[in-house]
């Protein structure tokens, strides 16, 4: 895969516990030099915690973090060549824009003249000209955000950590800043580790996305991989909209699987599966097709429930006979179906993805409850209880 030399941040089996609760579990992650890597996941999944361990604000409970091949366990935040853009901006309220941005250079004892020059350059880069003497309290959220970014970037860190930096901005400004940040990153060639819970933001900006769920990194890959080939049900559901269907294989025909769902039969392309296996499949709204006539191998039937206008596409909601609702993205110029009409739902066999097999599910359940079971067994198998538990 990647050349070892290219890896700038490496996390090996990193775990973090708060009061005995694991909030980051066995995290293995290699961040490549110059890439824009996003940690994506719902709130509370451990993104900030991960970032804080890389920055040095928080110790790992176990595992190792390497920066440029060097274990940083003993390095304090001020000794690590990384900088952070905090979600709350954390600008120094008693300093104006210039002094905030210059903070790191003053610490590095850079000569005054050079500081002045670099601060001016940075202010230009983030388009804050004219606001040099403003205090943070006198600025808007977007402006403060730019100061926070400039203050971190001016130190030319090896890695810039950004914790939901655009979270507090309104939608329009956020979209604009997404592009600006991405361009800035490309221009400067600095490695970005970016945290967000916004999947659209992650897809727009990242070179690679690491999707986290409940402290576990479920998948890492390019936006295209994560979106088009989600490996787990969670990723499929979290990144982009998806319709997840439970089914089992009724017939294997080379790489083609004939599957049976509660609401009908369907076909999908996936090598390596056996008859009668239970699988979860995911079909994106834009890959679902509707037809008045039955298509070969497909017999999923549903009723049009509503059309939702969503700008360039129309989202049509179809209710299947088992009550499950599918969302179908359609172009306005496609054939119009009236609400209440019955349609057949189908897809191109290659456009449905298997995201979850039942074995996987059982395995996860076992893994999750093993400890608890062992504990219970431990109680049961204690000397006094040993006799009766043998009978069970």
């Amino acid at each position, binding site marked *: 895969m990647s050349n070892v030399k290219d890896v700038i941040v490496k996390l090996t089996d990193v775990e973090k516990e708060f009061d005995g609760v694991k909030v980051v579990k066995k995290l293995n992650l290699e961040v490549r030099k110059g890439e824009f890597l996003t940690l994506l996941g719902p709130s509370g999944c451990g993104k900030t915690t991960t970032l804080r361990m890389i920055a040095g604000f928080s110790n790992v409970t176990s595992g190792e973090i390497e920066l440029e091949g060097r274990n940083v366990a003993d390095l304090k*935040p001020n000794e690590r060549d990384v900088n952070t853009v*905090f979600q709350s901006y954390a600008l120094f*309220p008693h300093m104006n824009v210039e002094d905030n941005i210059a903070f790191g250079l003053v610490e590095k004892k850079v000569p005054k003249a050079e500081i002045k020059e670099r601060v001016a350059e940075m202010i230009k880069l983030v388009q804050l000209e004219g606001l040099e003497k403003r205090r943070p309290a006198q600025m808007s959220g977007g402006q403060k955000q730019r100061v926070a970014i400039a203050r971190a970037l001016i130190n030319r860190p090896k890695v810039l950590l950004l914790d939901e930096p655009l979270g507090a901005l309104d939608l329009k400004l956020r979209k604009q800043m997404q592009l600006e940040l991405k361009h800035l990153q490309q221009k400067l060639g600095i490695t970005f580790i970016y945290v967000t819970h916004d999947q659209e933001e992650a897809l727009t900006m990242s070179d690679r996305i690491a999707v986290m769920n409940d402290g576990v990194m479920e998948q890492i890959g390019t936006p295209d991989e994560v979106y088009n080939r989600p490996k787990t049900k969670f990723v499929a559901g979290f990144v982009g909209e998806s319709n997840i269907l439970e089914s089992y294989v009724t017939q294997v025909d080379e790489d083609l699987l004939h599957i049976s769902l509660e609401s009908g039969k369907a076909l999908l392309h996936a090598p390596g599966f056996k008859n009668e296996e239970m699988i979860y499949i995911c079909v994106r709204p834009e890959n679902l097709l509707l037809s008045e006539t039955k298509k070969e191998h497909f017999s999923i039937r549903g009723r049009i429930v509503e059309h939702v206008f969503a700008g360039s596409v129309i989202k049509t909601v179809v209710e299947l006979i088992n009550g499950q609702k599918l969302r179908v993205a359609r172009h306005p110029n496609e054939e119009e179906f009236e609400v209440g009409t019955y349609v057949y739902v189908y897809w191109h066999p290659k456009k449905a993805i298997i995201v979850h097999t039942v074995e996987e599910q059982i395995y996860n359940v076992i893994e999750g409850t093993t400890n608890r079971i062992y504990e219970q067994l431990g109680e049961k198998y204690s000397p006094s209880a040993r006799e009766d538990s043998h009978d069970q």
Partner: protein
Amino acid sequence: MINKIKNKVTPVVMIGPATFWLILFLLIPLFLVIGISFLQRNGYGGVDMVFSLQAYFDMLTPEYLKIFIASFRLSVATTVICLLIGYPFAYVIAHSSEKAKPFLVLLLMLPFWINSMIRIYGWNTLLRSSGIINNVLISLGVVDVPLEMLYTDGAVLLGMVYDLLPFTVLPIYTSIEKLDPTLLEAASDLGATKLHRLVRVVLPLTMPGIFAGSIQTFIPSLGLFYISDMMGGAKTMYVGNLIKNQFMSARNWPMGAALAILLIVITLVLMRLYTKVGSLDDMV
């Protein structure tokens, strides 16, 4: 209707006693003091009902100015020492574990529950010639004759610092507590060592607390008289003692009253400054 009357009556009933209390024990005495300061003393320890500015003119004589200067110096020294000790003190409390914090704050407040004069008397028993410290030093053979510790200016300063330290620490503690911890993280993140973080971020941002602590120490230090009485043997005269003496022994009531008014005016000016800086707090 009944509600309306109730709404009008309730506040009066509620503040009534407090207002009455304030008028009886604060306002009336205050006007008495102001009034007396403009009267003429008579030879028998009382006042004649004759208007006079004599007391105020007397304050400008060198003896009195010397006392003001001594008082001012003592108060400044007390405030500075209280700040030097109090800031690290407050810092340590604010950064101690969540479990230890309430206990440490309690320790800080504990002295308030014992009469301050009794506590100062405690120092007296420690420091005097036959006091505990001297006894220990002599029995250890460190010194032959007891050290002169009590009844020195140093002892007065010690007593003042001891007595007023909590007033310095509490506002500073509050301002350090209020500090957003991510600001400290940001400073470390940008390369600041702990010391630089303190100097460049923590100190400037806790200035309002430092200022409040200083004023809350400085104001009472001007008027305290029993500490210099009990620990300084009244060797050096300060404004506090002076006022007390004018009323109790010198029997020059107009002078005592005028001096009291001077202290009140100084306090008001400082309070005004304090509230002004207090509003700076919001800006930071």
